[in-house]
């Protein structure tokens, strides 16, 4: 991979640029790279989406299965989020079980969706204590060029918007799956915005090159009402309390932008003629 020395040389360059409000790819400090959102990219999934942020590409497939609920929540469905860093996506990804970065990514996306209460898990109960819907959200990182958090969270939400689960009939203890499908109902649209700290500057949507030299970063999930619902600070650097408040405000503002992009893409997908 990229060796230590060029990273350090690059850091001085990127820091200098950032202090002047500039970035290596010509963006402003608070701009996202171009974003594209595609729905229904995997035909065999119950819901799917592909999100590109610049050269980062993440695909998410949702599968709904009938399973048994957890004993402490017998009347609730189950949401499971998993992330795979597919080796074809980056020279730094290796085959094998998910490493700490993949586990963190999946757990943070899970937290954002779960805590926004986007999915009413009680709606996913079929027979209390016996049969519930298990919603598997599989994050598939296919091209890694920075900011996996935001791309994965956006793709996961888009895939859930695209999800249709079979309509079931209950006959005593038996669950009969019909041909009909109904959309998974979402009550909120949690959006992740990641803010990186580069010297004295805060930047939105860091690329891989920027991530390599970031002090640290903060991912903030916001709900449709503009409240925060999950945070995760990562990388071994520090934020001052003032920087954190600034980052949260920035995330609330950028979250709105991303959410309207998502809705716009969804409208186009639903009614292509109007596009």
């Amino acid at each position: 991979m990229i060796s230590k020395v060029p990273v350090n040389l690059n850091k001085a360059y990127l820091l200098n640029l950032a202090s002047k409000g500039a970035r290596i790819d010509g963006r402003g400090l608070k701009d996202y790279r171009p974003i594209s959102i595609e729905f229904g990219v995997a035909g065999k999934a119950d819901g799917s989406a592909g999100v590109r942020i610049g050269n980062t590409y993440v695909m998410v497939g949702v599968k709904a299965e009938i399973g048994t609920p957890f004993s402490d929540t017998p009347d609730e469905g189950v949401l499971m989020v998993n992330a795979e860093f597919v080796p074809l996506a980056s020279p730094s990804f290796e085959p094998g079980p998910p490493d700490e970065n993949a586990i963190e990514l999946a757990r943070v996306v899970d937290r954002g969706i779960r805590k926004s209460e986007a999915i009413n898990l009680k709606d996913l109960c079929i027979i209390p204590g016996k049969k519930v819907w298990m919603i598997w959200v599989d994050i598939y990182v296919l091209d890694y060029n920075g900011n996996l958090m935001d791309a994965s969270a956006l793709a996961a939400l888009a895939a859930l918007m695209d999800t249709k689960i079979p309509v079931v009939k209950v006959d005593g203890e038996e669950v009969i799956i019909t041909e009909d499908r109904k959309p998974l109902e979402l009550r909120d649209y949690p959006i992740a915005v990641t803010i990186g700290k580069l010297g004295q500057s805060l930047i939105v949507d860091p690329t891989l090159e920027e991530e390599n030299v970031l002090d640290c970063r903060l991912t903030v999930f916001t709900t449709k009402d503009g409240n925060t619902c999950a945070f995760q600070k990562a990388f071994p650097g520090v934020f001052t309390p003032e920087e954190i408040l600034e980052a949260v405000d920035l995330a609330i503002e950028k979250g709105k932008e991303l959410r309207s992009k998502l809705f716009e893409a969804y409208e186009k997908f639903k009614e292509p003629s109007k596009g």
Partner: protein
Amino acid sequence: MSEERIVLIDERGLRVDGRKPDELRPLKIEVGVLANANGSAYIEQGKSKLLVAVYGPRELHPKHLALPDRALLRCRYHMAPFSVEERKSPAPSRREIELSKVIREALEPAILLDRFPRTAIDVFIEVLEADGGTRCAAVTAASVALADAGIPMRDLVVACAVGKVDGQIVVDLCDLEDKYGEVDMPVAYMPSKGVVTLLQMDGILTREEFEKAFKMALEACEKIYQVQKDALRRKFGGVQEESVEEVSGDK
């Protein structure tokens, strides 16, 4: 829901364990409790009990992980199978893997890793009894254990959780409040430097609630900082004046 809702704040405004919203649980820190480790600490925060050991700086295996310009900090947060209500499998869970990462990243900014190139510093955290706030107790105790190991640091790292239960912002959540409350937000802080090294949150907070909770967490960290320093003084308070000067004159 068929079962009764648990009341987390009573009519007098007190919490399940009788505390006020901004009141910490009883806190005890002991330094140098293990014979083999280079540094160690034991912490009791309410009913949460943890043991932390620091080994290193020491030779790093496997060698290819060595960093040419600094020590490699490794951290393992692990829960004893008997630390929780239902037996926990001793194999590392996804939660433990994530917490090991965030705890490592919370401690790393405090340590002068560049003093010990090519070596490893290992921090082992064992949760013996869990009653909420274990990642915070782990950070608090680990930084004391690092100091006990004589590893040069910029500051101690203190951590404390804040949260929202029954609509109230409260500090230092216990297990019940963590489970049935609305929000849990762990914060780690270096008080002398005034910087935050860990921040996580789950649950819905408005912008105003967040700011209030965040400030409360920093105040709680200041209080815990005193307990950390007292614990270190109890062990090292007797150290001769001259030798202290020698160490500080080094830099």
